[in-house]
């Protein structure tokens, strides 16, 4: 852990407590450019809090986060957040703006406009019809909305993409498709991606590196392959066991 000094994103002894509840405790690690990191753990294990410390939706009580070698707390929050793509658990499309306006928000906050061609390109990246730009979010299905959410996160040309349980509210088929699409975008656009999920199968299928959290601490930091071959300790293995057990039972029914 933490053996590669020139990391793109670094947590240094990061901690966050709310009154007397510890959400994140003494997390130190580095993430290199191009990694697809999944943060996995039970509810309340601190994975969302850790993610939000990166773009300052949560301010840590101890330690620090370095992005490209710079403390994220150094400057004002707004410009920092515009440099970081963020996909929300609740999708968070603004109901009073059209799909196109939602996508164009990050450039607009910088005082720039998003060319129509670029908006169309972003919609195509998430496999939506560019004609959808003029629709209102309420007219879309849940899956379509989260695709727009991903397109909006990519509009700022950021190289860091944070996703907080991005597919949690979607049906399994949409979820699988969108997950695959995001993984391919990650590669095509050369992104560094952090995804919070409570679904170990999703983490194993999409990520290049899986961080398992328990009670505010990182208890395993492994590749999917290592986890599947039994590494990472009890908490991690208990989580890996869930999809494995499901697969066995399905095979049993089929057999």
């Amino acid at each position, binding site marked *: 852990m933490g053996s590669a000094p020139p990391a793109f994103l670094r947590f240094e002894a990061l901690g966050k407590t709310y009154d007397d509840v510890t959400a994140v405790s003494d997390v130190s690690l580095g993430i290199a450019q191009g990694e697809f990191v999944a943060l996995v753990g039970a509810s309340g294990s601190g994975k969302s809090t850790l993610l939000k410390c990166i773009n300052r939706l949560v301010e840590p009580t101890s330690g620090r986060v370095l992005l490209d070698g710079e403390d994220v707390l150094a400057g004002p929050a*707004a410009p920092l*957040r515009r440099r970081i793509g*963020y996909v*929300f658990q609740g999708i968070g499309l*603004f109901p*009073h703006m059209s799909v196109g306006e939602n996508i164009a*928000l990050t450039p607009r*906050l910088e005082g720039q406009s998003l060319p129509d061609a670029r908006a169309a390109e972003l919609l195509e990246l998430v496999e939506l019809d560019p004609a959808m730009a003029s629709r209102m979010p309420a007219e879309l299905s849940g899956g379509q909305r989260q695709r727009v959410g991903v397109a909006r996160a990519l509009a700022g040309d950021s190289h860091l993409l944070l996703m907080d349980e991005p597919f949690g509210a979607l049906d399994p088929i949409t979820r699988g498709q969108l997950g695959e699409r995001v993984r391919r975008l990650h590669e095509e656009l050369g992104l560094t991606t952090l995804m919070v999920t409570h679904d170990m199968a999703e983490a194993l299928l999409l990520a290049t590196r899986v961080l398992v959290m328990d009670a505010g601490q990182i208890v395993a930091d492994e590749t999917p392959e290592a986890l599947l071959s039994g590494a990472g300790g009890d908490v991690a293995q208990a989580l890996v066991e869930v999809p494995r057990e499901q697969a066995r039972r399905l095979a049993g029914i089929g057999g």
Partner: protein
Amino acid sequence: MSPLLDALLDLGPQLAEHVLLCAAAVALGIAVALPLAVWASRSPSVARVALGFASLVQTIPALALLALFFPILLAARGVFGEDLPTLGFLPAWLALALYALLPILRNAVTALANLDDELIEAADGLGMTGWQKLRLVEAPLAAPYVMAGIRTASVWTIGAATLATTIGQRSLGDPIFAGLQTQNWVLVLAGCFASAGLALVADALFGLVERGFAKRRPALVIAGAVLALAGIAGAAVSLIDWRGETRETVVIGAKSFSEQYILARAIGSVLEDAGFAVEYREGLGSAVVHNAVASSAIDISVDYTGTLWTNQLERTDNPGREAMYEEIVRWEEENTGALVLGRLGFENAYGLAVTQETAQQYGLATIADLAGVAPQLTIGGDPEWFERPEWIGVRDAYGLRFGEQRTYSPTFMYNALTSGEADVISAYTSDGRIAAENLIVLSDPREALPSYDAIVIVSPRMASDEALVETLQPLLGAVDVDTMRQANYAVDRDEDKWLPQRAGEWLLEQIGL
């Protein structure tokens, strides 16, 4: 043409001023409430204090709130100088704006507090600054609720603004107060219809804007706003005096009872005939009138010596009619600079009235005659009469011990007398019903009842206007109590009611003007 329609068509200027007053008050309410709501949404303690204050204001009756701004502005003159108006538009505007504050503030604070947390997190997460979040997310999402608050505030304000009449601001309350006092229900209805109609129109237009915000249809928002602004602009344009006259207007005040309306109109007619531009501030609170004329907020008022003696000079003695008058003239000159022009000739005093039959049966001409027979008689009075110093004074001066003492509401007192339930009643000596019922007001040889000579007072601003003083001279000493009673009765009676204007002109005819 129906009388109601006539009365409605006469309300143009009142409607226009009502619209402008309400628009200005709601605009000020918005200007204060919205920034306050944004601040409150960032700070819970500000929210508590602001909402608490606005709720507290709302518990003050609108009438009292309007009245309170008179002393507040009077005190503020210490800071802003003597030119600060204490009556009319300014206090009405401030009081109504305060009243409009609560619904706007409450809706805005509630709307901002109840915005979807996920959207707020999304706004922050995308990197919006506080101002961008307010402009791009919070304001548009809260807009329908804020608009609903503005709509409620407008309807309340239009209703409450009718009370502005009592502090000298022309409004749709003018016909309501005039009608209530003279029991002219057509006028009351006209005022109510006009203000209710205005409230409905405002409600419909702002409803359109609200729906436009809620359904995200800018065309509706623009249509509602444009129509509302056009109405306000129309009201403003209609009030511009196109004749371009520059001469100052004489403002005549009247308290809220028939005699005051009639005399104001009579004085106004005389001045208009002499070429003065005249405006009326009618239905003013009794306590407001003297302050208004003393501070030149109005220029002419009719008051009563006994009232000023007690309320302004704060005296309790009774030096007699002449001495009281002389003392008041001197006091006004020294203390307020107002000019007591003179006496009109009649008194509107407290008196004791009996029917012709009772007077003959017991041989009554003076209150002194009552003393011997009082134990066999019943006296009736309005609820406050038996507590008033006037009653205690006259009772003790003549040793009156009535067999029975009964209380009636003023309206029923005269019925009680004519039906024989009461033998003697307290009465206002210029009351029209005295003439109508052919009653006898017993004379007061011991001058136990203080005199209430009707006097004309001219504001300090106009006191040195010789033309005005000259024009009003013929009225002085010319109005006897019988003429005044008849004029009052013509306005008060149930059938064939006259408007105060007509009664005033009739009064002038009687005295040869």
